[in-house]
């Protein structure tokens, strides 16, 4: 059953020419001039209960704009949005009770309050029963280690602490839907891993529906089965990550270090695209030739000191899709 339905969603920003001075302010309350910017152009998707979907796209693709429309703080220019049966912008306060939101770029906690007081305030705002509040706080404290900074004002938290506080805060009222806009931005490797584990658990155990935007493809690989790729406000791909990998992930790179330096290396089914002293980078298609076949060819004439086989990172596949489009991209991507 879809809990999020988006149809032909569009958002144009009318960038207003700002007026100056007091009279300008009064005038601009009444009438102003604008320049148009299309941030989201005709995006449709639907997300089922309990799904965790990666919402991916380069800078300025329209990810945050879409998320904001789902939260109700932005009104679409046209098209329809439904979140848990509610039209967010028409019923912002009602929608707020169904969703948890984290904007990695900025906190939504009260800047000058100790973290724990922000939580207490949210408890009242969302009318979380005492018992449930305590259970949630216990769980989140345990997994996210909140206790080390609960009494610290939010403005003094480190980025990693702040992010943990923010995600805990977004879940206090048990929303069935969670929007995470870059929840791992600026985190170190360990903190990222912890955040991923937490998101995964929340999604599994509470069957919360999650939409996640990120620039870190590892987040997507570790958390999501499905991704929606957008670029310039339009949907480029919507489907399983495994399918993308299957389709474009056939290219392999074999890197060999030879005992002696060699002028050239000619191989059937492989193409040397880079060489440095006695090290060679050889690109091949997994369907045409196997790595061991290539190695066998090399050992006929050379001694191999060391070798590695690399498969393309989802990251580079995606950056190629951005550049060339999903349909136009040849299956053997040279990444």
């Amino acid at each position, binding site marked *: 059953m879809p809990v999020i339905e988006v149809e032909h969603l569009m958002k144009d920003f009318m960038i207003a020419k700002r*007026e100056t001075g007091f009279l300008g302010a009064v005038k601009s309350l009444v009438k102003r001039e604008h320049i148009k910017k299309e941030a989201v152009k005709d995006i449709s998707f639907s997300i089922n209960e309990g799904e965790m979907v990666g919402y991916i796209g380069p800078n300025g693709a329209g990810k945050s704009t879409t998320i904001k429309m789902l939260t109700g703080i932005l009104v679409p220019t046209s098209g329809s949005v439904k979140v848990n049966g509610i039209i967010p912008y028409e019923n*912002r306060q*009602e929608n*707020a009770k169904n969703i948890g939101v984290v904007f990695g770029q900025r906190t*939504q906690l009260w800047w000058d*309050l100790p973290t724990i*007081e922000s939580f207490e305030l949210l408890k*009242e*705002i969302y009318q979380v029963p005492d018992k449930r509040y305590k259970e949630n706080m216990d769980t989140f404290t345990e997994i996210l280690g909140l206790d080390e900074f609960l009494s610290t004002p939010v403005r003094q938290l480190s980025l990693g602490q702040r992010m943990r506080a923010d995600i805990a805060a977004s879940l206090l009222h048990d929303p069935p839907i969670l929007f995470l806009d870059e929840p791992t931005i600026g985190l170190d490797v360990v903190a990222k891993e912890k955040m991923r584990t937490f998101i995964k658990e929340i999604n599994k155990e509470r069957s919360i529906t999650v939409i996640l935007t990120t620039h870190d493809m590892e987040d997507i690989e570790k958390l999501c089965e499905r991704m929606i790729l957008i670029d310039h406000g339009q949907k480029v791909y919507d489907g399983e990550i495994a399918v993308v990998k299957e389709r474009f992930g056939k290219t392999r790179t074999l890197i060999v270090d030879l005992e002696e330096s060699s002028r050239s290396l000619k191989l059937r089914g492989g193409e040397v695209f880079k060489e440095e002293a006695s090290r060679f980078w050889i690109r091949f298609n997994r369907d045409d030739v196997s790595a061991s076949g290539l190695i066998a060819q090399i050992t006929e004439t050379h001694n191999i000191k060391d070798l590695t086989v690399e498969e393309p990172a989802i990251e580079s596949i995606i950056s190629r899709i951005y550049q060339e489009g999903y349909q136009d991209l040849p299956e053997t991507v040279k990444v």
Partner: protein
Amino acid sequence: MFRFRLYWTFTKKAFLRSAVYRFDVWSRLGSNLIFLLMWGSIWTALYAGREEAGGVSFESMLTYIVVSQFLTGVNGAGTPLWEIQEKVRTGDISLELMRPFDVPLRYLFADFGSVAFYILTALLPLYTVMFIFMDLTLPSAWETWALFIVSAFIGFLIRYCIEMSFGLLSFFLVETGGIVDVFYFAMSLLSGSVIPLWFFPGWLETMALYLPFQGIYYIPNAIFIGKITGEEILLSLGVQLFWAVSSYLLLRFVWNRASQKVVVQGG
């Protein structure tokens, strides 16, 4: 449905938070005192030993100044204009649109908390001492005290609505210097906070009487020192109520425009 408990939480939190910023309380009290001394000596010099001017005794005038400084303390303990502008600029206010509460009301209730803290811990002790040790005219009837408190409270609401409305104008402007000037000019002069309206030249007094600002300082103060009495008080309270409602409507209008701008233009 008005969820009193929710808004009351903001009051409690703001009250407790003020306790953390004790330096702020003391420094504000300090500057409040300095202004009190300044205006006290200016008016002493202006009276130049006369017992009476403009139909008001020196003692009443001094009382007016003290009460005015007290009200300045009360009104100054709320969220100031620059802080509202700051919250607009940083997007804090826009993000609060995502919460299930009404933003202007939430700030009003938070202000109740910080103002209550400031009154209880700083203003009340100081001004009580002042009233005991200085020769000031105190209302003799308890009704006058009650009417003063009611009037001061309505004045507080008028000021809140106007200050918030002015602050929210930063949603529509880059430069707000002009706005800030207009606001502070009206707040200090037209409100009668430093010079009582009866000393104004006729045209300025008429103008001030047609504006909401007199409801913030002049009316409660005039009630306190007995400049207006009896039915006049009720009339003045009526005028205040009119301005409270009007400035509330102004605030709602500006807020609707501001939140409309956020949801359409992204802040």
